[in-house]
């Protein structure tokens, strides 16, 4: 047993209102520099949709992540020799057009244009070339299903839906979407680390944050393809790759990452998980439909004396173990089994988990009224989610969150529905005690668990959402540096300007 600690995340999609505050908070801190204008280390996508960069989930196109071939795990992108052979040209690299060409406007024209017959305009100019450009796409071009015949219709996750189910999604009355905020998953088996020829990307042992050494990066640009989530970005100006750093300078000083801190819907939870690093390999080899179970199994119980002993033997401090015991992520992922990894079939073991959104039920227009058909006949109160009548087929969710295993997603929903029915029964008395009991049985839960889920979902305090482990970086650096010298030097880490090399 090789117990390690991982700073992990849960995003509760039911609470996401798609306001993009997280993205803007991140951008203002980290990616407002030249060469990073197009990067959104945190982005919020509308699902169904093609996402950012376009069609990032389509690994036939980008060859990201891992694949299981005859019992062994291979990078989809390349073998070792192939990686070096393709180093002069990466055939699967997304280019700036797969994201969007960043632009600004010539605002000074509004003030400086000579007097004339026409109103002066602020024309868009490219932030790459500085020349006039026609805007063809931008961040969240398909927000809220904008242009859905072009974008949402091409969502790779819709592939397994029947023609009828797909056409339903285009009917105005039946349209459905939800938001999917994404940051780097800080995976246990990251594809970017494995794909980097220079070995510049590494996982921090103490907290599992995945970082790119800007000194070692040589712009071989394999990480961008290797990451199946397309969460490594290429800074075209400095010639270095960059990615979400989970705001480690903030974490180290006890603050939540900027996107977590600023989240308006309070959908984000952050906490420590303990996992068994010896089992990473076997976990990544599980069949697609068993990946979620395997992923849960690698996460260890922080109250188990054996686990605690192994953690201590690995140098994990008591304070860190304590943080793991109070981790909201542990509750959502392991205890309640409500949060699922995004696309586990990429086999990178992502450590950002999602509570899938409640599915709105189908309504039909009849005599000028929307009617929810079939309400009541399953013992479910009206206006509540019903799996059987969900607008968004379960198969779609399973494709996103459970490697195609619908049973796992269904179990999550049954529990969420039970929580909702039980809480509504307390406050608006819609459901009878029998109905509540039935929902709890179906949802495999009990009143205590329901209350705990309700508290952490609807009324958590700041400290309950973010149990920031004491990373004690100042103690970790003591061995090599004076902590007081180190302290003002932390951050993104340049003591000189990141000047592009000749």
């Amino acid at each position, binding site marked *: 047993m090789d117990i390690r600690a991982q700073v992990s995340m849960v995003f509760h999609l039911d609470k996401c209102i798609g306001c993009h505050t997280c993205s803007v908070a991140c951008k203002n801190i980290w990616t407002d520099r030249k060469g990073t204008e197009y990067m959104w280390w945190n982005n919020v996508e509308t699902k169904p949709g093609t996402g950012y960069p376009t069609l990032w989930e389509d690994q036939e196109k980008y060859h990201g992540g891992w694949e299981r071939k005859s019992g062994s795990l291979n990078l989809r992108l390349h073998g070792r020799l192939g990686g070096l052979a393709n180093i002069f*040209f990466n055939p699967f690299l997304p280019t700036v057009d797969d994201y969007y060409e960043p632009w600004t406007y010539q605002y000074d024209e509004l003030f400086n244009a000579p007097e004339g017959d026409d109103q002066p305009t602020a024309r868009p100019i490219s932030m*790459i070339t500085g020349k006039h450009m026609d805007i063809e796409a931008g961040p969240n071009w398909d927000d809220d299903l904008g242009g859905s015949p072009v974008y949402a219709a091409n969502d790779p996750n819709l592939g397994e839906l029947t023609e009828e189910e797909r056409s339903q999604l285009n009917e105005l009355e039946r349209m459905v979407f939800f938001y999917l905020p994404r940051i780097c998953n800080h995976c246990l088996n990251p594809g970017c680390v494995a794909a980097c020829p*220079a070995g510049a990307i590494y996982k921090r042992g*103490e907290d599992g944050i995945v970082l790119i050494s800007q000194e070692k990066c040589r712009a071989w640009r394999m990480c961008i393809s290797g990451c199946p989530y397309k969460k490594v970005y290429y800074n075209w100006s400095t010639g270095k790759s960059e990615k979400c750093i989970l705001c480690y300078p903030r974490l180290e000083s006890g603050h939540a990452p900027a996107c977590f801190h600023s989240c308006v819907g309070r959908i984000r939870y952050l906490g420590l998980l303990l996992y068994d690093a010896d089992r990473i390999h076997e976990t990544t080899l599980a069949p697609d439909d068993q990946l979620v179970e395997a992923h849960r199994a690698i996460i260890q119980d922080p109250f188990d004396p054996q686990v605690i002993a192994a953690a201590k033997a690995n140098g994990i401090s008591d304070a860190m173990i304590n943080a793991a015991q109070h981790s909201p992520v542990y509750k959502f992922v392991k205890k309640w089994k409500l949060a699922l990894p995004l696309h586990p079939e990429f086999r990178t073991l992502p450590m950002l988990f999602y509570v899938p959104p409640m599915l709105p039920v189908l309504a039909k227009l009849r005599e000028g009224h929307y009617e929810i058909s079939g309400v009541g006949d399953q013992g479910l109160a009206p206006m509540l989610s019903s799996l059987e009548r969900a607008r968004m087929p379960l198969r779609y969710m399973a494709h996103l969150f459970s490697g195609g295993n619908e049973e796992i997603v269904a179990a999550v929903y049954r529990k969420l529905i039970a929580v909702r029915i039980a809480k509504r029964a307390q406050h608006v008395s819609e459901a009878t005690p029998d109905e509540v009991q039935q929902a709890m049985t179906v949802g495999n839960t009990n009143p205590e668990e329901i209350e705990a889920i309700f508290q952490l979902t609807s009324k958590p305090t700041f400290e309950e959402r973010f149990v920031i482990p004491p990373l004690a970086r100042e103690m970790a650096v003591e061995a090599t540096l004076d902590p007081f010298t180190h302290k003002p030097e932390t951050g993104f880490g340049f003591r000189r300007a990141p000047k592009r090399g000749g």
Partner: protein
Amino acid sequence: MLNIVLFIVFPYVSVILAVVVGSYRYFFDRFTYSSQSSQFLENRKLFYGSVPWHYGVILVLTAHVLALLFPAEWGILIGVPIRLYILEVTGYILAAIAILGMTMLIVRRLTAIRARVVTSRMDWVLLAVLLAQVVLGLWVALFYRWGADWYLHTAVPWILSLVTLNPQIQYVTVLPVVVQLHLLGGFLVIALFPFTRLVHLMTFPITYLWRPYQVVVWNRRARKP
């Protein structure tokens, strides 16, 4: 006197520059070590430029280095005419491929505006020098037959004499001007090396062949894994 400057002073200066400035840059400004790939900005033309250029020039350069390191074995290798012909013709083809690739790369940087904005002055110098050097090389190979052979008796002893700090320039001073330009061009590239993106060549990630896929960095590790 000019010959001494060109064939003794210049090679030493260029190598010293490459080592000293290259090392300085590596140890004190490592952030600037990068291949500065612009594939992200322009994809299509790069394929037709970068791949032929790199493969062509690497193979040709490897032949140069092998002959320099193992002159005796190289001599035996080309001792039979048919082997010499095959080797030379292969060389012509590879050089032509490299020239086409480099031309494409230059055209790309001129025409693709996105790639042009990330092209520095030194990039232009480097592109021009590299193209000239490969064109000169092909010129020499085509019009001063069999270079694979006389290389062993001219440039090789000259370079070895430079390495052993006993410069003998008589091996090269009598050569035609075009050949001399090609020799000097080689050292010009070495001199340009630390000042350009050419430094990416020294950090070719050969260790990728054997390094473990996952890299975990510990600040302080209590227990060795």
